[in-house]
């Protein structure tokens, strides 16, 4: 039977497309259990989006959790093999508390992790795959990229205390220039560079040359050079146009380092892709190699409905009790052969929206109602 993509919902289409995309680049599927030892999450609580985890006791008394995250399990179950990389993708449901309504939610997540001897090629390929993931969902997409080294060097250079550093990072995340001004003036330091970073926004080719002029340290220069090499890579692969530099992409500094990014689709009110390099998380979990990855949050894709389906079915065929089943079947076949969605029933279900209402008579189908 031929496969009709039109019956798929956006998120279902995305799952197929993304799996196909990741397989092309040598990623293999990582399938895991729905549960994981609670202990794993407690030790890395700050890494998770929310502290709340659904837990339960296994038959042997062990405390388990419904996975709030996939990355931690992948890191835990992998081994460092010098010189090689492990490339896996996953398609899993995770269980988290939504910040918006403070209730548990099941979120469908597709993502990939590249772990091991991660070099420039791996990093750039991952950023490219992030851009292509968004593109496979919609042509109207933007991938914002930041480099944690640039932001942290600028904050270090400001020379403020730990509390202020944390607050400055938050203000950069909000693009809050007046907030940066306030913290810097209270601390008696210059906030010009931080404000420049917070307000920087634009395409790679427009922003990167300007960044070179504001570099203040070797580490920052190296980060800008890496972004420049990344821009050339993306350009050669045809996706540089939708990638922007935005230093307000702030991931948790205790886990992430280097290149981080966040993806947006026009018509969806929040970011739907998030990722970056997380060597610090690897170190915390006793791994020696490097890592980069991202996740696409598919639950928001239902907001992207191209056209709202107006009807539940195309046609309803009513038949009387005792009608000949062969005649009903023939009538249904007649409609489905034309690709119509048909409901054969004795009476119309409540609130059902249909395009056409037909009645099975002895002489054939009679049209009772046409709504289209």
């Amino acid at each position, binding site marked *: 039977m031929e496969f009709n993509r039109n019956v798929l919902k956006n998120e279902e289409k995305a799952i197929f497309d993304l799996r196909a995309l990741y397989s092309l680049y040598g990623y293999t599927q990582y399938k895991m259990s729905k549960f994981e030892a609670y202990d794993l999450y407690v030790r890395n609580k700050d890494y998770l989006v929310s502290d709340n985890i659904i837990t339960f006791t296994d038959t042997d008394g062990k405390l388990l959790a419904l996975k709030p995250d996939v990355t931690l399990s992948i890191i835990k179950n992998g081994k460092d093999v010098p010189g090689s990389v492990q490339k896996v993708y996953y398609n899993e449901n995770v269980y988290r508390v939504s*910040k*918006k309504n403070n209730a548990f939610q099941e979120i469908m997540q597709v993502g990939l992790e590249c772990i091991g001897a991660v070099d420039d090629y791996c990093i750039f390929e991952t950023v490219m795959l992030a851009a292509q993931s968004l593109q496979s969902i919609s042509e*109207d997409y*933007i991938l*914002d990229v930041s480099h944690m080294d640039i932001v942290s060097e600028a904050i270090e250079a400001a020379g403020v205390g730990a509390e202020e550093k944390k607050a400055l990072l938050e203000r950069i995340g*909000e*693009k*809050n*220039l*007046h*907030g940066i001004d306030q913290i810097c003036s209270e601390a008696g330091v210059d906030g010009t560079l931080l404000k420049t970073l917070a307000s920087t*926004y634009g395409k790679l080719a427009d922003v990167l040359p300007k960044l070179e002029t504001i570099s203040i340290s070797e580490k920052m220069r190296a980060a800008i050079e890496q972004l420049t090499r990344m821009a050339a890579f993306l350009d050669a692969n045809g996706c540089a146009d939708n990638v*922007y530099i935005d230093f*307000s992409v702030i991931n948790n500094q205790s886990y992430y380092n280097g290149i981080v990014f966040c993806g*947006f*689709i*026009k018509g*969806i*009110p*929040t*970011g739907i892709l998030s990722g970056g390099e997380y060597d610090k998380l690897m170190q915390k979990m006793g791994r020696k190699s490097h890592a980069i990855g991202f996740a696409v949050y598919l639950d928001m894709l239902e907001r992207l409905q191209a056209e709202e389906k107006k009807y539940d079915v195309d046609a309803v065929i009513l038949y009387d009790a005792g009608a000949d089943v062969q005649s009903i079947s023939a009538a249904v076949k007649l409609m489905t052969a034309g690709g119509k969605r048909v409901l054969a029933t004795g009476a119309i279900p409540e609130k059902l929206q249909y395009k056409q209402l037909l009645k099975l008579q002895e002489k054939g189908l009679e049209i009772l109602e046409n709504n289209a």
Partner: protein
Amino acid sequence: MLNVALPKGRLGEKVYAMFEKAGFECPAIHEPGRKLIFENEEKQVRYFWVKPSDVAIYVERGAADIGVAGKDILAEYAPDVYELLDLNLGKCRMAVAAKKGFRDNPEKTLRVATKFTNIAKAHYAAQGRDIDIIHLNGSIEIAPILDLSDVIVDIVETGSTLKENNLEVYESFMPISARLIANKPSFKFKNALMQEILGSLSAQVEAEK
């Protein structure tokens, strides 16, 4: 089309005047009536009046691309939005107030009545002070008088309401004013229009300083 959520009331009117000056006028807004949504097709802008404390929700969820909300609301609900500009309007401060002559006894748990639960919690957590939060929706000032609480955490503009209720500011801790906020994806997909508005509003704020 750029959707702008404005807070109902005097502050919203002042903010609209700034947008008008920036070249994004919508004359229909001045017509009397109860309409809440106003559009100027030519300027590609649509304004709507919402309850001040709801502006951040409209913006965070993308029903509005930009909006104007008080820092008190932003600090309390921490919406995931960009805070682009301090409009220097609607200035007041968040303060702890108590009955005149109040002494904070550190041996006891402090009972705090407030509308701003998260702000109050964060303020006292930073001091390591043990508190009992009492969430109220209005008439906060009477809580200490009726011995419902020891102190209140609330917005203070002139201090006259406090005075009339025999209360005084014990400690001010957060300056508040109206902020221009933006939905994150909107900032990206409607960047040119937003930068134009931001540029003009910043210039107006600077000129007023």
